[in-house]
């Protein structure tokens, strides 16, 4: 008899997205996988220690770093380790030495390996806006397969749902965002990470589109107070901060964000 249930996912999700607690703060420190060293995380050990000391609920790491930095995630008071399962080149914009010419996405770790690494959750990306429809299908297929594997290990799956690329315009952005969030839910996501939709009412539409899955706001600028407060009012359950925006002042920046979210200093 298969005893697997949603229980493991629910318990692990609650360790960084506590339904009875204030909005969560998760930091993405996995940028090295796609763009190399970033400010504040050139030295992963000290950079992560500063982020963790600031009081965050979860940290997203690449599989390689997760294995090396495991000691920082020990104890029930430590933040949850979330493991990045895929790679893409979408963060390589015009300022990057090799900007992307074609959006690409591949898997780098499965649920079993994330479990081995001690993950409380796993993070994948789902993009809409590919030039070639086959790429979107490949991306969704990868997310769906990962979701099925996550069920087996009781690992919650967070999906970054992002409209990206030349086919995404100001005109279709909100609909694309809602569509990518809803498709992620249908594929098996337990939480959806989305960028700000531009207004509180739009954000509410995104939250509604995500249905049962909690929505987390992805912010590039840690002090983007308007996006944060409007999203929380619209129903977002937390914030995912890009590590690149933290720079050397990670601790004070996260402290400010905590205050903004009503979590205290």
């Amino acid at each position, binding site marked *: 008899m298969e005893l697997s249930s949603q229980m493991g996912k629910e318990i692990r999700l609650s360790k960084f997205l506590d339904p009875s607690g204030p909005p969560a703060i998760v930091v993405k420190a996995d940028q090295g996988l796609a763009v190399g060293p970033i400010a504040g995380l050139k030295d992963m050990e000290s950079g992560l220690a500063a982020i963790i000391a600031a009081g965050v609920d979860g940290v997203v790491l690449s599989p390689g770093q997760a294995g090396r930095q*495991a000691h920082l995630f020990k104890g029930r008071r430590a933040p949850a380790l979330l493991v990045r399962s895929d790679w893409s080149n979408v963060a390589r914009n015009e300022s990057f030495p090799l900007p992307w010419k074609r959006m690409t996405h591949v898997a780098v770790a499965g649920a079993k390996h994330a479990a081995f690494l001690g993950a409380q959750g796993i993070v994948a990306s789902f993009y809409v806006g590919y030039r070639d429809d086959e790429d979107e299908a490949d991306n969704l297929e990868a997310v769906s397969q990962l979701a099925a594997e996550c069920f087996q290990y009781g690992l919650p799956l967070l999906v970054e749902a992002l409209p990206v690329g030349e086919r995404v315009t100001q005109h279709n952005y909100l609909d694309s965002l809602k569509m990518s969030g809803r498709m992620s839910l249908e594929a098996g996501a337990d939480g959806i990470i989305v960028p700000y939709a531009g207004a509180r009412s739009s954000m509410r539409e995104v939250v509604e589109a995500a249905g049962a899955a909690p929505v987390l706001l992805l912010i590039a600028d840690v002090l983007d107070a308007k996006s944060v407060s409007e999203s929380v009012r619209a129903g977002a359950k937390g914030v995912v901060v890009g590590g690149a925006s933290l720079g050397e002042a990670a601790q004070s920046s996260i402290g400010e964000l905590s205050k903004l979210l009503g979590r205290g200093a």
Partner: protein
Amino acid sequence: MSGPGKEIRLSRIIDPSDARAVVIAADHGYMLGPIKGVIDLGRTIASVTEGGADGILVSPGQAAKIGYLFRGKDRPAMLVRADWTNAFRSKTYTLPSRHVQHRYMTSPRQAMALGADAIVIYFFVGYADDQEEAQHVSRVARYARECEEIGLPLIVEPIPLGERITGANYNELVGISIRMSAEIGADAIKAPYTNDVEMYRDVVRSAGIPILILGGAKSKTLRDALEVVEEALESGARGTVFGRNVVQAPDPGAMVRSICQVVHGRKSAREVTRPVAEGKMKLRVSRPRDCTGCHICEIACSAAHGAGYGLESARLFVRPSRDGFRPVVCTQCLKCVEACQRRALAVDSKLGCVVLDASKCNGCGDCAEACPVDVVRMDQGRPLFCDLCGGIPECEEWCPREVLASVRR
């Protein structure tokens, strides 16, 4: 320990700040049915959680049903019992076991899916047929390998069991089965304590992985249970796994708090179980003929009042008597209080002992002179009075022959 996942998950059970753990076993229903304390399991788990347990062991079926009690950052770790046995269905239970059976019911991956931070499995030694021990070793090894692959800590509970186990070989087999479990691939051990600090120190050293000792069969008193824990910790054990002593306690949460005070708070069982004094009390020499003149009462008194282990500062003394020896204690006659011209002495409203207001005392010594039994002594210009140690007189606690007894007035 192999792999980061195991390290992270085990640290959710064994607190990295002091490398110790208090785990509560609540999986009895799987083996014994609805025994007291696990009938309303949700209520017991809520109480144990509130008491501050680091982890709770539950059966896979209960994990799927009441796993919601483990949701949230401040909740204890979930340990899942992955195997089943009838070995504990003794003659006092319905359908006592005729032949020990042991089966694996839940795979490590299934336990992961349920939200487990670790799984717990038995390892028996003492089978009548050696082939059965070999099969059990094989099963533990299979689970150890699977746990390694998915980063799930494996806690093995080695138990010497069966007709080949005797009083003479039990303790040695505890040590042997623990070491064997470590060699097979256990990440931590849940094992009985052998009531021998020095012997267990060797067991701990030999294991090389954390050992959590069993709370054991239901203890007569809380202090009995905690004294075993205190002793085991002294030998290097990393904590405890309490079962029936906690889940069948009138207030499981309060019991867990007491265990945590010993395990994490590093307090002694004596300190933790010291009751708050209620009502006035008096010290009596209840069995004067049993006094051997060992002076332990005086030493305990002196030490309890921070005056070292000499006899000079004790608030009682032992004198030779016609029959041998006899302790002399304050009778609370209050003649000292009457003798004090400066009104520096008063009667403690809660306990009834004499208390000194040092700011009013001029060290005249009238109180000592007025004492008809000479227990009021002068020390550096100030009189010393029996304060009943706040309600648990140390002289009474330490007297090996129970010569002294405190009574409520």
